[in-house]
């Protein structure tokens, strides 16, 4: 699946010899019993980059992270950081550290002792490690709680202790396994900003695993979407959100309308795809080899769908029945149906009065050709 690197030059052809950054090369993990957790993953990550591995549970993202950290061992492939292979090294010999899910603090040690632990293990003298630990706690704003036990801290504070504990060991790459999963939603939103801000300050490589699309979009420099052990797409958040390459990415990112049908017209790079209800969408897809009659999937973002009361039938438009009007404050989701197929349109929250109570009515929607993406199966 080498051709799947949506990134082009930056993501393709990782080279162990060029030196800088982290390279995953043909990384594969087969668990005893035959379950393939990770299959042939190629990925290059630069220093200072914030990369999010995103996917549904069981997609292989956590196993990939654990292999980088040394907590799982690849069946095949290599992990190279700055020209040095990590595969043969124990977790603590690697220049990576992991922030584990649920923080994994030592409950019987104080905050300061938790933070000091890594330095103590690396043989740093008592005064020096105390100084560094206090520095790290100051950086995350917890110096005054140094003598508390973890259980006396709130979730957000525990999270910050976990960060301070790994940062004191001065890793080259920080691995974060669902770091915000245990926090309340409101706190999650704030911690996103804090975490990203911290990463920018430090200029460190952060690799962050999550199943939360919004979290990935808001934090990442680049998102790696995974499914069923493989990489589906690697791209920056804007591209992932607006130009999904595969059906999985389109569905997983949510709020994409997928039209499943066949190519009915083909003119150079321009295709027209029609589904069984004769909803027709045109799309420009340079280099796609499909011919008239071939199966094709296209996606249209819900936010790109406009309500077009006066439009007529034809290309890039459809007549729908309103199923449900969902008001979400800033925006309104219109759940629609064309024949048996569900579609979704999003309009701004101010327009709620225009649509309130219109369930059951017919409505015409339309979209632009440039908002249509032809998907790989």
């Amino acid at each position, binding site marked *: 699946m080498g051709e799947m690197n949506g990134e082009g030059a930056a993501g393709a052809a990782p080279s162990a010899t060029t030196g800088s950054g982290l390279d995953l090369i043909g990384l594969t993990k087969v668990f005893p019993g035959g379950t393939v957790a990770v299959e042939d993953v190629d990925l290059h990550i630069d220093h200072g980059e914030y990369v999010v591995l995103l996917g549904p549970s069981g997609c292989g993202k956590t196993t990939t992270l654990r292999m980088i950290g040394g907590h799982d061992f690849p069946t095949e492939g290599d992990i190279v950081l700055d020209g040095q292979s990590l595969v043969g090294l124990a977790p603590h010999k690697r220049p990576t550290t992991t922030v584990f899910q649920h923080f994994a603090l030592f409950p019987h040690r104080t905050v300061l002792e938790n933070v000091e632990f890594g330095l103590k293990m690396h043989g740093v003298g008592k005064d020096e490690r105390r100084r560094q630990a206090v520095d790290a706690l100051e950086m995350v704003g917890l110096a005054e709680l140094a003598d508390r036990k973890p259980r006396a801290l709130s979730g957000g504070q525990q999270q910050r202790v976990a960060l301070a504990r790994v940062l004191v060991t001065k890793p080259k790459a920080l691995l974060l396994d669902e770091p915000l999963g245990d926090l309340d939603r409101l706190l999650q939103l*704030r911690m996103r900003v804090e975490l990203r801000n911290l990463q920018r300050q430090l200029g460190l490589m952060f690799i962050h695993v999550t199943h939360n699309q919004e979290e990935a979009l808001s934090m990442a420099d680049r998102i790696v979407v995974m499914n069923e052990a493989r990489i589906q797409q690697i791209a920056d958040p804007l591209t992932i959100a607006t130009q999904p390459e595969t059906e999985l990415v389109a569905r997983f990112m949510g709020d994409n309308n997928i039209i499943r049908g066949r190519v009915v017209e083909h003119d150079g790079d321009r295709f027209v795809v029609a589904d069984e209800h004769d909803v027709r969408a045109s799309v420009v897809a340079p280099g796609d080899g499909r011919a008239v009659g071939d199966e094709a999937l296209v996606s249209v973002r819900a936010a790109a769908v406009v309500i077009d009361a006066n439009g007529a039938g034809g290309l890039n438009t459809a007549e729908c029945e309103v199923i449900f009007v969902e008001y979400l404050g800033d925006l309104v989701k219109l759940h629609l149906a064309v024949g048996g197929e569900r579609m979704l349109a999003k309009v701004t929250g101010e327009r709620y009065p225009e649509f309130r109570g219109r369930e059951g009515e017919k409505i015409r929607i339309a979209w632009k050709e440039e908002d249509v993406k032809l998907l790989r199966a």
Partner: protein
Amino acid sequence: MSSSSAPDPILAEVEEAEELAHGVSREQALGIDKSERGGGWITAAWALPGGLWLGFFLLAPLVFIVLVSFWTYELGAKSGFATKWTLSNYGTIFHSSTYWHNMLGSFYTSLIAVVACLIFGFPIAYFLALKVQSLRNQIALFIIALAPFWTSFLVRSVAWTYPLSEVLGKFGVSTPSTTSVRLAMIQLYILFMITPLFFTLAQVDRTAIEAARDLGGNWWRTFRAVILPQTLPGIVIGSIFIFVLTMGEYGTVLVVGQNYVQSVGTIVNSYIVGAVQYPQGAAAAVLLVLALVAGVLVITRFSNLREDL
């Protein structure tokens, strides 16, 4: 990694979000408001059956034994004693060097049993809880480990006498002897150590173990930092079990020791069954109970000291 001394606006935002999310600060939330608890008499009513049960089956016999220990031995009386108050039973026991000699011997045996059960039991519990991967296999192996308890106590004790004498004989240790009794006790009671250890070890936060390894902790450091502190309640409970069970031991001493070995338990028995000296036997038993209470207090105290390990 330098830090600015000015308050970080983003950190302040996070604190604020936390307070909004929880409604109150965590300290407030953790404080238990006593006025919110239901009426005291309802709670008392719930506790009543259990209280009666404990009072009748546990406390009453103990009180009765204490009473008898202060009453007078009387040869002709139907019960073997008269309800005349005396301290002479305790006087006799206090001056019985045999009693104190055996008390010390039993204590020493208990100490050895506790330490041996901990040393041999911990690796077994550790293996079951942390090395066996699936819960199903854990439970299966645990039940297999329990299998000796499916036979009766007497069968297990008797079963030990022959192999013990064979094996110990090869090392020049005569049987029956104190050593053979102690070995039998360790085998017979070790499950009372393994069980609480297994359950506390199974609850140890495994990601904390991984985190310790990730930060450079070798096996021993990880054990000290993460596993041991979280297993301490199991160690304490197991130690109390072994201590109490072996200190007052009587059956194993009788079966494996075959009258050649004595313990506090057999002394108490000899007063009651042998000499039919109920008041003196009761006094000996009360002193044993006091010794056990003292031992348990020492063990729990020790664990409190180590809580901040």
